[in-house]
Protein backbone atom coordinates (compact mmCIF):
# COMPACT_ATOMS: atom_id res chain seq x y z
CA UNK A 1 0.00 0.00 0.00
CA UNK A 2 2.71 2.41 0.99
CA UNK A 3 4.58 1.56 -2.19
CA UNK A 4 1.54 2.52 -4.26
CA UNK A 5 0.99 5.76 -2.37
CA UNK A 6 4.64 6.63 -2.72
CA UNK A 7 4.54 6.00 -6.47
CA UNK A 8 1.35 8.01 -6.89
CA UNK A 9 2.78 10.82 -4.84
CA UNK A 10 5.92 10.94 -6.97
CA UNK A 11 4.17 10.71 -10.33
CA UNK A 12 1.52 13.29 -9.54
CA UNK A 13 4.17 15.65 -8.18
CA UNK A 14 6.08 15.46 -11.43
CA UNK A 15 2.98 15.88 -13.59
CA UNK A 16 1.91 18.83 -11.48
CA UNK A 17 5.33 20.43 -11.95
CA UNK A 18 5.28 19.93 -15.70
CA UNK A 19 1.75 21.28 -16.16
CA UNK A 20 2.58 24.21 -13.91
CA UNK A 21 5.55 25.03 -16.13
CA UNK A 22 3.39 24.95 -19.25
CA UNK A 23 0.76 27.07 -17.51
CA UNK A 24 3.38 29.69 -16.60
CA UNK A 25 4.68 29.83 -20.15
CA UNK A 26 1.18 30.11 -21.59
CA UNK A 27 0.38 32.78 -19.00
CA UNK A 28 3.21 34.83 -20.42
CA UNK A 29 1.92 34.25 -23.94
CA UNK A 30 -1.52 35.37 -22.74
CA UNK A 31 -0.05 38.57 -21.40
CA UNK A 32 1.60 39.32 -24.73
CA UNK A 33 -1.80 39.45 -26.37
CA UNK A 34 -0.55 37.23 -29.17
CA UNK A 35 -2.06 34.02 -30.50
CA UNK A 36 0.00 30.85 -30.97
CA UNK A 37 0.07 28.97 -34.26
CA UNK A 38 -3.27 27.20 -34.42
CA UNK A 39 -4.31 28.58 -31.05
CA UNK A 40 -6.27 31.86 -31.05
CA UNK A 41 -5.88 34.29 -28.18
CA UNK A 42 -8.90 33.18 -26.23
CA UNK A 43 -7.74 29.57 -26.51
CA UNK A 44 -4.33 30.49 -25.17
CA UNK A 45 -6.09 32.04 -22.20
CA UNK A 46 -8.34 29.04 -21.70
CA UNK A 47 -5.52 26.50 -22.02
CA UNK A 48 -3.47 28.58 -19.58
CA UNK A 49 -6.31 28.50 -17.12
CA UNK A 50 -7.12 24.83 -17.60
CA UNK A 51 -3.50 23.72 -17.32
CA UNK A 52 -3.23 25.64 -14.08
CA UNK A 53 -6.27 23.87 -12.72
CA UNK A 54 -4.99 20.48 -13.91
CA UNK A 55 -1.75 21.23 -12.13
CA UNK A 56 -3.73 21.95 -8.96
CA UNK A 57 -5.62 18.68 -9.20
CA UNK A 58 -2.41 16.69 -9.55
CA UNK A 59 -0.91 18.66 -6.70
CA UNK A 60 -3.86 17.79 -4.51
CA UNK A 61 -3.46 14.09 -5.24
CA UNK A 62 0.26 14.47 -4.62
CA UNK A 63 -0.33 15.97 -1.20
CA UNK A 64 -3.10 13.62 -0.13
CA UNK A 65 -1.24 10.50 -1.19
CA UNK A 66 1.85 11.53 0.73
CA UNK A 67 -0.23 12.45 3.73
CA UNK A 68 -1.31 8.83 4.04
CA UNK A 69 2.20 7.63 3.43
CA UNK A 70 3.77 6.55 6.67
CA UNK A 71 7.33 7.33 5.66
CA UNK A 72 6.81 10.98 4.84
CA UNK A 73 5.14 11.47 8.24
CA UNK A 74 3.33 14.60 7.20
CA UNK A 75 0.99 16.31 9.60
CA UNK A 76 -1.86 18.58 8.62
CA UNK A 77 0.21 21.50 9.79
CA UNK A 78 2.89 20.73 7.21
CA UNK A 79 0.50 21.58 4.41
CA UNK A 80 0.23 25.19 5.46
CA UNK A 81 3.18 25.99 7.71
CA UNK A 82 6.54 25.40 6.07
CA UNK A 83 9.81 24.02 7.47
CA UNK A 84 8.48 21.88 10.34
CA UNK A 85 8.53 18.57 8.53
CA UNK A 86 10.47 15.60 9.86
CA UNK A 87 11.91 14.50 6.51
CA UNK A 88 14.07 17.02 4.66
CA UNK A 89 12.29 19.92 6.40
CA UNK A 90 13.82 22.59 4.20
CA UNK A 91 12.97 21.04 0.84
CA UNK A 92 9.58 19.94 2.01
CA UNK A 93 9.00 23.40 3.45
CA UNK A 94 9.57 24.84 -0.01
CA UNK A 95 6.75 22.62 -1.22
CA UNK A 96 4.52 24.02 1.50
CA UNK A 97 5.45 27.57 0.54
CA UNK A 98 4.62 26.70 -3.06
CA UNK A 99 1.21 25.33 -2.06
CA UNK A 100 0.42 28.47 -0.07
CA UNK A 101 1.38 30.70 -2.95
CA UNK A 102 -0.55 28.58 -5.41
CA UNK A 103 -3.67 28.80 -3.27
CA UNK A 104 -3.38 32.59 -3.24
CA UNK A 105 -2.86 32.78 -6.99
CA UNK A 106 -5.65 30.36 -7.87
CA UNK A 107 -8.20 31.84 -5.49
CA UNK A 108 -7.59 35.38 -6.72
CA UNK A 109 -7.77 34.14 -10.30
CA UNK A 110 -11.10 32.47 -9.77
CA UNK A 111 -12.42 35.60 -8.06
CA UNK A 112 -10.85 37.89 -10.65
CA UNK A 113 -14.10 39.52 -11.67
CA UNK A 114 -14.97 40.29 -8.06
CA UNK A 115 -11.76 41.51 -6.50
CA UNK A 116 -10.73 43.82 -9.30
CA UNK A 117 -7.85 43.89 -11.68
CA UNK A 118 -5.24 45.37 -9.41
CA UNK A 119 -5.47 42.79 -6.62
CA UNK A 120 -5.57 40.02 -9.18
CA UNK A 121 -2.48 41.29 -10.91
CA UNK A 122 -0.42 41.86 -7.78
CA UNK A 123 -1.10 38.37 -6.49
CA UNK A 124 -0.60 36.85 -9.92
CA UNK A 125 2.93 38.23 -9.94
CA UNK A 126 3.66 35.76 -7.09
CA UNK A 127 3.77 33.09 -9.77
CA UNK A 128 7.29 34.20 -10.53
CA UNK A 129 8.19 33.18 -6.96
CA UNK A 130 5.95 30.16 -6.91
CA UNK A 131 7.44 28.45 -9.93
CA UNK A 132 11.12 28.40 -8.85
CA UNK A 133 10.10 27.41 -5.32
CA UNK A 134 8.13 24.51 -6.70
CA UNK A 135 10.99 23.41 -8.93
CA UNK A 136 13.46 23.60 -6.06
CA UNK A 137 11.13 21.47 -3.97
CA UNK A 138 10.87 18.92 -6.74
CA UNK A 139 14.62 18.61 -7.12
CA UNK A 140 15.50 18.76 -3.46
CA UNK A 141 12.71 16.68 -2.03
CA UNK A 142 11.75 14.36 -4.83
CA UNK A 143 12.92 10.74 -4.81
CA UNK A 144 13.85 11.17 -8.46
CA UNK A 145 14.75 14.81 -7.94
CA UNK A 146 18.37 14.33 -8.82
CA UNK A 147 18.08 11.44 -11.23
CA UNK A 148 19.23 12.24 -14.71
CA UNK A 149 15.92 12.03 -16.52
CA UNK A 150 14.26 14.36 -14.05
CA UNK A 151 17.08 16.85 -14.28
CA UNK A 152 16.56 16.84 -18.03
CA UNK A 153 12.89 17.69 -17.52
CA UNK A 154 13.85 20.35 -15.00
CA UNK A 155 16.40 21.76 -17.41
CA UNK A 156 13.93 21.97 -20.28
CA UNK A 157 11.35 23.55 -17.97
CA UNK A 158 13.83 26.12 -16.75
CA UNK A 159 14.88 26.95 -20.28
CA UNK A 160 11.24 27.38 -21.31
CA UNK A 161 10.37 29.65 -18.42
CA UNK A 162 13.56 31.68 -18.63
CA UNK A 163 13.06 32.08 -22.36
CA UNK A 164 9.49 33.22 -21.83
CA UNK A 165 10.54 35.66 -19.12
CA UNK A 166 13.30 37.06 -21.32
CA UNK A 167 10.73 37.58 -24.06
CA UNK A 168 8.38 39.08 -21.49
CA UNK A 169 10.83 41.83 -20.57
CA UNK A 170 11.92 42.48 -24.13
CA UNK A 171 10.71 45.56 -25.97
CA UNK A 172 8.77 43.67 -28.61
CA UNK A 173 6.75 41.62 -26.15
CA UNK A 174 3.34 43.28 -26.42
CA UNK A 175 1.56 42.87 -29.72
CA UNK A 176 1.17 46.28 -31.43
CA UNK A 177 3.83 47.71 -29.10
CA UNK A 178 5.78 48.91 -32.11
CA UNK A 179 2.85 50.78 -33.67
CA UNK A 180 1.38 52.22 -30.49
CA UNK A 181 2.70 55.68 -29.87
CA UNK A 182 1.20 56.24 -26.48
CA UNK A 183 1.26 54.18 -23.35
CA UNK A 184 -2.19 53.71 -21.89
CA UNK A 185 -2.17 54.08 -18.15
Amino acid sequence: MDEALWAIGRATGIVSMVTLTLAVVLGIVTRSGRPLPGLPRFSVTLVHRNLSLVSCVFLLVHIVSLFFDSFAQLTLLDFVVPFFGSFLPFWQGLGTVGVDLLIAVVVTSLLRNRIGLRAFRVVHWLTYVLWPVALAHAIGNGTNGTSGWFLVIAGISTALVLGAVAWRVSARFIEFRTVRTGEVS
Partner: protein
Amino acid sequence: MMDAAPHLPVNTSAPRGTARLFLAAGTSFAAHLRAYGALPPTLPAATRAGAGAPADAETVIEQLRAAGLDGRGGAGFPVWRKLASTRSHASGRGSRPAVVIANGSEGEPLSRKDHALLSLAPHLVIDGLLLCAAAVGASDLHFFTTAELAPGVQHALGERPDARHVKVLVTPEAFVAGEATAVVNAVERAVSVPRDHVLHLSEAGLKGRPTLVQNVETLAQLALIARFGAEWFRSIGTEQEPGTRLVTVCGDVATPQVLEVAGGTPLSVLIAAAGGASAPVSAVLVGGYHGAWVPAPALDTPLSREALSPFGAAPGAGVVFVLSSARCGLETAAGIATYLAEQSAGQCGPCVNGLPAMAGVLSRIASRSRDPPLPAEVARLADLVTGRGSCSHPDGTARFVLSSLSVFASDVRAHLASTCEVHGA
Protein backbone atom coordinates in the same frame (compact mmCIF):
# COMPACT_ATOMS: atom_id res chain seq x y z
CA MET B 1 -41.36 100.64 1.83
CA MET B 2 -41.25 99.88 5.49
CA ASP B 3 -40.05 96.32 5.17
CA ALA B 4 -36.89 97.08 3.22
CA ALA B 5 -34.00 97.34 5.62
CA PRO B 6 -32.93 101.01 5.57
CA HIS B 7 -29.21 100.22 5.47
CA LEU B 8 -29.69 97.91 2.53
CA PRO B 9 -31.24 99.67 -0.43
CA VAL B 10 -32.45 96.74 -2.45
CA ASN B 11 -33.02 96.94 -6.16
CA THR B 12 -35.41 94.19 -7.03
CA SER B 13 -36.42 95.54 -10.40
CA ALA B 14 -35.28 93.35 -13.22
CA PRO B 15 -32.26 94.56 -15.16
CA ARG B 16 -32.97 95.82 -18.65
CA GLY B 17 -30.69 95.55 -21.64
CA THR B 18 -28.00 92.97 -22.21
CA ALA B 19 -26.05 93.86 -19.07
CA ARG B 20 -27.37 91.27 -16.67
CA LEU B 21 -24.61 89.29 -15.06
CA PHE B 22 -22.18 92.04 -14.10
CA LEU B 23 -24.44 94.59 -12.40
CA ALA B 24 -23.06 94.32 -8.89
CA ALA B 25 -20.82 97.28 -8.01
CA GLY B 26 -18.33 94.98 -6.30
CA THR B 27 -17.72 91.36 -5.44
CA SER B 28 -19.11 91.61 -1.90
CA PHE B 29 -22.33 89.94 -0.87
CA ALA B 30 -23.78 93.35 0.05
CA ALA B 31 -23.08 94.72 -3.41
CA HIS B 32 -24.64 91.60 -4.89
CA LEU B 33 -27.80 92.04 -2.79
CA ARG B 34 -27.99 95.70 -3.71
CA ALA B 35 -27.88 94.86 -7.39
CA TYR B 36 -30.14 91.84 -7.51
CA GLY B 37 -31.97 91.55 -4.21
CA ALA B 38 -32.19 88.40 -2.14
CA LEU B 39 -33.12 85.04 -3.53
CA PRO B 40 -36.88 85.04 -4.22
CA PRO B 41 -39.11 84.27 -1.25
CA THR B 42 -40.98 81.71 -3.34
CA LEU B 43 -37.99 79.53 -2.67
CA PRO B 44 -37.45 79.89 1.06
CA ALA B 45 -35.90 76.48 1.28
CA ALA B 46 -33.22 77.34 -1.18
CA THR B 47 -31.19 78.98 1.50
CA ARG B 48 -31.39 75.93 3.67
CA ALA B 49 -29.76 73.29 1.60
CA GLY B 50 -31.44 69.98 1.15
CA ALA B 51 -34.75 71.09 2.55
CA GLY B 52 -36.39 72.07 -0.72
CA ALA B 53 -40.09 71.43 -0.68
CA PRO B 54 -41.25 69.60 -3.81
CA ALA B 55 -43.43 72.43 -5.01
CA ASP B 56 -40.48 74.80 -5.00
CA ALA B 57 -38.36 72.39 -6.95
CA GLU B 58 -41.08 72.01 -9.55
CA THR B 59 -41.26 75.78 -9.82
CA VAL B 60 -37.57 76.11 -10.53
CA ILE B 61 -37.57 73.33 -13.10
CA GLU B 62 -40.73 74.61 -14.77
CA GLN B 63 -39.30 78.10 -14.91
CA LEU B 64 -36.12 76.83 -16.52
CA ARG B 65 -38.09 74.90 -19.08
CA ALA B 66 -40.10 77.99 -19.96
CA ALA B 67 -36.94 80.10 -20.09
CA GLY B 68 -35.23 77.62 -22.41
CA LEU B 69 -31.87 77.99 -20.68
CA ASP B 70 -29.19 75.72 -22.11
CA GLY B 71 -25.93 74.68 -20.46
CA ARG B 72 -23.08 77.12 -20.98
CA GLY B 73 -20.19 74.74 -20.44
CA GLY B 74 -20.07 73.58 -24.02
CA ALA B 75 -22.59 70.81 -24.54
CA GLY B 76 -25.51 73.24 -24.57
CA PHE B 77 -27.97 70.79 -23.11
CA PRO B 78 -31.33 72.02 -21.75
CA VAL B 79 -30.75 72.73 -18.08
CA TRP B 80 -34.23 71.81 -16.90
CA ARG B 81 -33.86 68.28 -18.22
CA LYS B 82 -30.66 67.69 -16.31
CA LEU B 83 -32.28 69.03 -13.17
CA ALA B 84 -35.42 66.98 -13.66
CA SER B 85 -33.41 63.83 -14.32
CA THR B 86 -31.21 64.31 -11.26
CA ARG B 87 -34.24 65.07 -9.15
CA SER B 88 -36.16 62.02 -10.26
CA HIS B 89 -33.18 59.76 -9.60
CA ALA B 90 -32.66 61.32 -6.19
CA SER B 91 -36.25 61.09 -5.06
CA GLY B 92 -37.29 57.57 -5.95
CA ARG B 93 -37.63 54.85 -3.37
CA GLY B 94 -34.27 53.71 -2.02
CA SER B 95 -32.45 56.37 -3.97
CA ARG B 96 -29.52 58.24 -2.55
CA PRO B 97 -29.26 62.00 -2.00
CA ALA B 98 -28.06 64.06 -4.92
CA VAL B 99 -24.81 65.98 -5.28
CA VAL B 100 -24.47 69.33 -7.02
CA ILE B 101 -21.18 70.57 -8.43
CA ALA B 102 -20.51 74.04 -9.82
CA ASN B 103 -18.04 73.61 -12.66
CA GLY B 104 -15.75 76.60 -12.94
CA SER B 105 -12.74 74.72 -14.24
CA GLU B 106 -12.74 76.30 -17.71
CA GLY B 107 -10.32 73.80 -19.24
CA GLU B 108 -10.80 75.41 -22.65
CA PRO B 109 -7.63 77.53 -23.02
CA LEU B 110 -9.31 80.21 -25.17
CA SER B 111 -12.22 80.79 -22.82
CA ARG B 112 -12.06 83.45 -20.13
CA LYS B 113 -15.73 83.91 -19.40
CA ASP B 114 -15.92 81.68 -16.33
CA HIS B 115 -12.87 83.45 -15.01
CA ALA B 116 -14.52 86.84 -15.55
CA LEU B 117 -17.75 85.69 -13.98
CA LEU B 118 -16.13 84.18 -10.89
CA SER B 119 -13.87 87.14 -10.30
CA LEU B 120 -16.64 89.72 -10.74
CA ALA B 121 -19.91 88.05 -9.77
CA PRO B 122 -19.23 84.99 -7.58
CA HIS B 123 -22.45 85.46 -5.61
CA LEU B 124 -24.71 84.96 -8.61
CA VAL B 125 -23.03 81.61 -9.18
CA ILE B 126 -23.40 80.67 -5.54
CA ASP B 127 -27.09 81.63 -5.71
CA GLY B 128 -27.51 79.32 -8.67
CA LEU B 129 -25.69 76.51 -6.90
CA LEU B 130 -27.95 76.82 -3.86
CA LEU B 131 -31.06 76.94 -6.05
CA CYS B 132 -30.00 73.80 -7.89
CA ALA B 133 -29.31 72.04 -4.62
CA ALA B 134 -32.78 72.95 -3.39
CA ALA B 135 -34.37 71.87 -6.64
CA VAL B 136 -32.81 68.41 -6.63
CA GLY B 137 -32.75 68.02 -2.85
CA ALA B 138 -28.98 67.93 -2.50
CA SER B 139 -27.05 68.61 0.67
CA ASP B 140 -23.64 67.83 -0.77
CA LEU B 141 -22.41 70.90 -2.67
CA HIS B 142 -19.06 71.38 -4.37
CA PHE B 143 -17.49 74.32 -6.14
CA PHE B 144 -14.84 73.45 -8.67
CA THR B 145 -12.56 76.31 -9.71
CA THR B 146 -9.02 77.26 -10.66
CA ALA B 147 -6.21 77.80 -8.16
CA GLU B 148 -6.21 81.50 -9.02
CA LEU B 149 -9.89 82.01 -8.25
CA ALA B 150 -10.34 79.61 -5.35
CA PRO B 151 -9.48 82.15 -2.59
CA GLY B 152 -12.05 84.62 -3.96
CA VAL B 153 -14.71 81.95 -4.18
CA GLN B 154 -13.89 80.75 -0.68
CA HIS B 155 -14.17 84.31 0.59
CA ALA B 156 -17.52 84.84 -1.13
CA LEU B 157 -18.87 81.61 0.36
CA GLY B 158 -17.75 82.71 3.81
CA GLU B 159 -19.51 86.02 3.41
CA ARG B 160 -22.97 84.52 3.41
CA PRO B 161 -24.74 82.46 6.01
CA ASP B 162 -26.38 80.13 3.51
CA ALA B 163 -23.29 78.79 1.73
CA ARG B 164 -20.86 77.74 4.43
CA HIS B 165 -21.38 74.06 3.61
CA VAL B 166 -20.15 74.41 0.03
CA LYS B 167 -16.77 72.73 -0.46
CA VAL B 168 -14.26 74.40 -2.77
CA LEU B 169 -12.01 72.27 -4.97
CA VAL B 170 -9.15 73.35 -7.17
CA THR B 171 -8.97 72.03 -10.70
CA PRO B 172 -5.71 71.25 -12.45
CA GLU B 173 -4.97 73.13 -15.65
CA ALA B 174 -5.79 70.48 -18.18
CA PHE B 175 -8.11 70.50 -21.14
CA VAL B 176 -10.13 67.46 -20.16
CA ALA B 177 -10.24 68.33 -16.44
CA GLY B 178 -13.45 70.28 -17.02
CA GLU B 179 -15.29 67.33 -18.51
CA ALA B 180 -18.17 66.45 -16.19
CA THR B 181 -17.05 62.91 -15.33
CA ALA B 182 -13.52 64.24 -14.73
CA VAL B 183 -14.99 66.76 -12.30
CA VAL B 184 -16.81 63.99 -10.47
CA ASN B 185 -13.62 61.92 -10.46
CA ALA B 186 -11.74 64.87 -8.99
CA VAL B 187 -14.20 65.20 -6.13
CA GLU B 188 -14.36 61.48 -5.49
CA ARG B 189 -10.81 60.29 -6.09
CA ALA B 190 -8.75 63.47 -6.51
CA VAL B 191 -7.81 62.63 -10.09
CA SER B 192 -9.12 64.91 -12.81
CA VAL B 193 -9.47 62.47 -15.67
CA PRO B 194 -12.73 61.45 -17.31
CA ARG B 195 -14.10 58.09 -16.36
CA ASP B 196 -16.01 55.35 -18.03
CA HIS B 197 -19.75 55.58 -17.69
CA VAL B 198 -22.81 53.79 -19.00
CA LEU B 199 -25.31 55.88 -17.11
CA HIS B 200 -25.56 59.62 -17.13
CA LEU B 201 -24.17 61.41 -14.07
CA SER B 202 -27.66 62.52 -13.13
CA GLU B 203 -28.34 58.86 -12.45
CA ALA B 204 -25.03 57.61 -11.14
CA GLY B 205 -22.27 60.11 -10.50
CA LEU B 206 -20.27 60.84 -7.37
CA LYS B 207 -20.03 57.54 -5.46
CA GLY B 208 -22.97 56.33 -7.50
CA ARG B 209 -25.22 59.15 -6.35
CA PRO B 210 -27.32 61.28 -8.71
CA THR B 211 -25.00 64.13 -9.60
CA LEU B 212 -25.65 67.46 -11.22
CA VAL B 213 -22.64 69.20 -12.74
CA GLN B 214 -23.40 72.69 -14.00
CA ASN B 215 -21.17 75.27 -15.57
CA VAL B 216 -20.85 78.43 -13.48
CA GLU B 217 -22.42 80.69 -16.13
CA THR B 218 -25.40 78.35 -16.28
CA LEU B 219 -25.77 78.72 -12.52
CA ALA B 220 -25.58 82.52 -12.67
CA GLN B 221 -28.23 82.65 -15.42
CA LEU B 222 -30.37 80.31 -13.36
CA ALA B 223 -30.10 82.62 -10.36
CA LEU B 224 -31.47 85.47 -12.48
CA ILE B 225 -34.30 83.40 -13.92
CA ALA B 226 -35.36 82.37 -10.42
CA ARG B 227 -35.54 86.05 -9.49
CA PHE B 228 -37.02 87.70 -12.54
CA GLY B 229 -38.79 84.89 -14.34
CA ALA B 230 -38.71 83.07 -17.64
CA GLU B 231 -40.48 85.81 -19.54
CA TRP B 232 -37.91 88.37 -18.47
CA PHE B 233 -35.14 85.97 -19.52
CA ARG B 234 -36.66 85.59 -22.96
CA SER B 235 -37.13 89.34 -23.40
CA ILE B 236 -33.65 89.43 -24.90
CA GLY B 237 -32.16 87.16 -27.53
CA THR B 238 -34.07 85.10 -30.02
CA GLU B 239 -36.72 82.41 -29.82
CA GLN B 240 -34.06 79.69 -30.21
CA GLU B 241 -31.31 81.46 -28.28
CA PRO B 242 -33.08 83.30 -25.47
CA GLY B 243 -31.36 85.48 -22.91
CA THR B 244 -27.80 86.65 -22.84
CA ARG B 245 -24.63 84.63 -23.03
CA LEU B 246 -21.02 85.25 -22.18
CA VAL B 247 -18.58 85.06 -25.06
CA THR B 248 -14.82 85.27 -25.17
CA VAL B 249 -13.73 87.10 -28.31
CA CYS B 250 -10.04 86.47 -28.86
CA GLY B 251 -7.37 85.92 -31.49
CA ASP B 252 -6.65 88.64 -34.03
CA VAL B 253 -8.90 91.35 -32.62
CA ALA B 254 -7.94 94.77 -31.26
CA THR B 255 -9.10 94.08 -27.70
CA PRO B 256 -9.68 90.46 -26.79
CA GLN B 257 -12.38 90.38 -24.13
CA VAL B 258 -15.31 88.71 -22.46
CA LEU B 259 -18.67 90.13 -23.54
CA GLU B 260 -22.20 89.60 -22.38
CA VAL B 261 -24.31 89.59 -25.52
CA ALA B 262 -27.85 88.75 -26.55
CA GLY B 263 -28.37 85.21 -27.80
CA GLY B 264 -28.07 84.99 -31.58
CA THR B 265 -25.76 87.98 -32.01
CA PRO B 266 -23.95 87.76 -35.37
CA LEU B 267 -20.24 86.95 -35.30
CA SER B 268 -19.39 90.18 -37.13
CA VAL B 269 -21.03 92.20 -34.36
CA LEU B 270 -19.02 90.32 -31.73
CA ILE B 271 -15.80 91.03 -33.59
CA ALA B 272 -16.68 94.71 -33.93
CA ALA B 273 -17.47 94.88 -30.21
CA ALA B 274 -13.97 93.62 -29.48
CA GLY B 275 -12.51 96.49 -31.43
CA GLY B 276 -12.59 94.83 -34.80
CA ALA B 277 -10.17 92.42 -36.42
CA SER B 278 -6.55 93.45 -36.68
CA ALA B 279 -6.41 92.38 -40.33
CA PRO B 280 -8.97 91.01 -42.82
CA VAL B 281 -10.59 87.94 -41.25
CA SER B 282 -9.84 84.56 -42.76
CA ALA B 283 -12.09 82.45 -40.53
CA VAL B 284 -13.50 82.34 -37.02
CA LEU B 285 -13.24 79.34 -34.74
CA VAL B 286 -16.53 79.10 -32.86
CA GLY B 287 -17.02 77.08 -29.68
CA GLY B 288 -13.39 76.55 -28.77
CA TYR B 289 -10.86 73.87 -29.62
CA HIS B 290 -13.61 71.29 -29.91
CA GLY B 291 -15.53 73.67 -32.15
CA ALA B 292 -15.45 74.38 -35.86
CA TRP B 293 -14.44 77.16 -38.24
CA VAL B 294 -16.81 79.62 -39.86
CA PRO B 295 -15.19 81.09 -42.98
CA ALA B 296 -14.98 84.86 -43.52
CA PRO B 297 -17.81 85.14 -46.08
CA ALA B 298 -20.23 83.84 -43.45
CA LEU B 299 -19.40 86.27 -40.65
CA ASP B 300 -22.95 87.52 -40.43
CA THR B 301 -23.89 84.10 -39.06
CA PRO B 302 -25.58 84.51 -35.68
CA LEU B 303 -24.16 82.77 -32.63
CA SER B 304 -26.93 80.19 -32.52
CA ARG B 305 -27.08 76.46 -32.67
CA GLU B 306 -29.26 76.43 -35.73
CA ALA B 307 -27.27 78.90 -37.80
CA LEU B 308 -23.93 77.39 -36.86
CA SER B 309 -24.85 73.77 -37.44
CA PRO B 310 -24.13 73.80 -41.20
CA PHE B 311 -20.53 74.56 -40.24
CA GLY B 312 -20.52 71.79 -37.66
CA ALA B 313 -20.15 74.44 -34.98
CA ALA B 314 -22.22 75.42 -31.96
CA PRO B 315 -22.04 78.32 -29.49
CA GLY B 316 -20.51 75.85 -27.01
CA ALA B 317 -18.74 77.69 -24.24
CA GLY B 318 -18.95 80.93 -26.21
CA VAL B 319 -15.45 81.07 -27.65
CA VAL B 320 -15.01 83.19 -30.78
CA PHE B 321 -11.43 82.95 -31.99
CA VAL B 322 -10.65 85.25 -34.89
CA LEU B 323 -8.01 84.22 -37.41
CA SER B 324 -6.80 86.99 -39.67
CA SER B 325 -5.60 86.38 -43.18
CA ALA B 326 -2.10 87.20 -41.98
CA ARG B 327 -1.92 83.78 -40.37
CA CYS B 328 -1.99 80.40 -42.04
CA GLY B 329 -5.10 78.53 -40.95
CA LEU B 330 -3.48 75.15 -41.43
CA GLU B 331 -0.49 75.98 -39.27
CA THR B 332 -2.81 77.28 -36.58
CA ALA B 333 -5.00 74.20 -36.84
CA ALA B 334 -2.01 71.88 -36.68
CA GLY B 335 -0.82 73.65 -33.54
CA ILE B 336 -4.21 73.28 -31.90
CA ALA B 337 -4.52 69.63 -32.95
CA THR B 338 -1.08 68.91 -31.51
CA TYR B 339 -2.08 70.58 -28.26
CA LEU B 340 -5.30 68.56 -28.13
CA ALA B 341 -3.40 65.34 -28.78
CA GLU B 342 -1.12 66.15 -25.86
CA GLN B 343 -4.15 66.81 -23.69
CA SER B 344 -5.49 63.28 -24.08
CA ALA B 345 -5.88 61.93 -20.59
CA GLY B 346 -3.90 58.90 -21.67
CA GLN B 347 -6.51 56.35 -20.77
CA CYS B 348 -8.16 55.16 -23.94
CA GLY B 349 -6.16 53.42 -26.67
CA PRO B 350 -7.84 54.97 -29.72
CA CYS B 351 -7.49 58.47 -28.23
CA VAL B 352 -3.93 57.99 -27.02
CA ASN B 353 -2.75 56.62 -30.37
CA GLY B 354 -5.18 58.18 -32.80
CA LEU B 355 -5.01 61.84 -31.79
CA PRO B 356 -1.22 62.16 -32.11
CA ALA B 357 -1.37 60.30 -35.42
CA MET B 358 -4.07 62.65 -36.68
CA ALA B 359 -2.25 65.76 -35.45
CA GLY B 360 0.94 64.44 -37.02
CA VAL B 361 -0.58 64.09 -40.46
CA LEU B 362 -2.21 67.52 -40.19
CA SER B 363 1.18 68.96 -39.22
CA ARG B 364 2.73 67.38 -42.31
CA ILE B 365 0.11 69.12 -44.43
CA ALA B 366 0.82 72.36 -42.57
CA SER B 367 4.52 72.02 -43.27
CA ARG B 368 3.73 71.55 -46.98
CA SER B 369 4.64 67.97 -47.42
CA ARG B 370 4.00 67.01 -51.06
CA ASP B 371 1.94 63.96 -50.29
CA PRO B 372 -1.51 63.96 -51.90
CA PRO B 373 -3.03 61.16 -49.77
CA LEU B 374 -2.49 63.11 -46.53
CA PRO B 375 -5.92 64.79 -46.31
CA ALA B 376 -7.62 61.45 -46.86
CA GLU B 377 -5.47 59.98 -44.10
CA VAL B 378 -6.53 62.75 -41.70
CA ALA B 379 -10.15 62.06 -42.55
CA ARG B 380 -9.67 58.32 -42.04
CA LEU B 381 -8.07 58.81 -38.62
CA ALA B 382 -10.74 61.33 -37.62
CA ASP B 383 -13.39 58.75 -38.36
CA LEU B 384 -11.43 56.01 -36.62
CA VAL B 385 -11.19 57.79 -33.27
CA THR B 386 -14.72 59.20 -33.18
CA GLY B 387 -16.99 57.55 -30.63
CA ARG B 388 -14.14 55.48 -29.20
CA GLY B 389 -13.17 57.14 -25.95
CA SER B 390 -14.57 57.50 -22.47
CA CYS B 391 -15.15 61.17 -23.04
CA SER B 392 -15.85 63.24 -26.14
CA HIS B 393 -12.26 64.44 -26.51
CA PRO B 394 -11.57 62.28 -29.58
CA ASP B 395 -14.89 63.33 -31.14
CA GLY B 396 -14.30 67.01 -30.50
CA THR B 397 -10.74 66.86 -31.78
CA ALA B 398 -11.82 65.00 -34.91
CA ARG B 399 -14.55 67.56 -35.53
CA PHE B 400 -12.08 70.42 -35.25
CA VAL B 401 -9.57 68.74 -37.56
CA LEU B 402 -12.17 67.90 -40.21
CA SER B 403 -13.51 71.43 -40.07
CA SER B 404 -10.00 72.77 -40.60
CA LEU B 405 -9.54 70.60 -43.69
CA SER B 406 -12.81 71.71 -45.21
CA VAL B 407 -12.70 75.42 -44.40
CA PHE B 408 -9.08 75.74 -45.50
CA ALA B 409 -9.54 73.33 -48.40
CA SER B 410 -8.00 75.58 -51.02
CA ASP B 411 -5.00 76.18 -48.81
CA VAL B 412 -4.69 72.41 -48.31
CA ARG B 413 -4.30 72.11 -52.07
CA ALA B 414 -1.74 74.91 -52.06
CA HIS B 415 0.22 73.23 -49.27
CA LEU B 416 0.25 69.93 -51.13
CA ALA B 417 1.84 71.85 -53.98
CA SER B 418 4.47 73.16 -51.55
CA THR B 419 3.14 76.68 -51.40
CA CYS B 420 0.80 78.53 -49.03
CA GLU B 421 -2.02 80.97 -49.64
CA VAL B 422 -0.84 83.12 -46.75
CA HIS B 423 2.92 82.81 -46.73
CA GLY B 424 3.37 82.19 -50.45
CA ALA B 425 6.03 79.85 -51.79
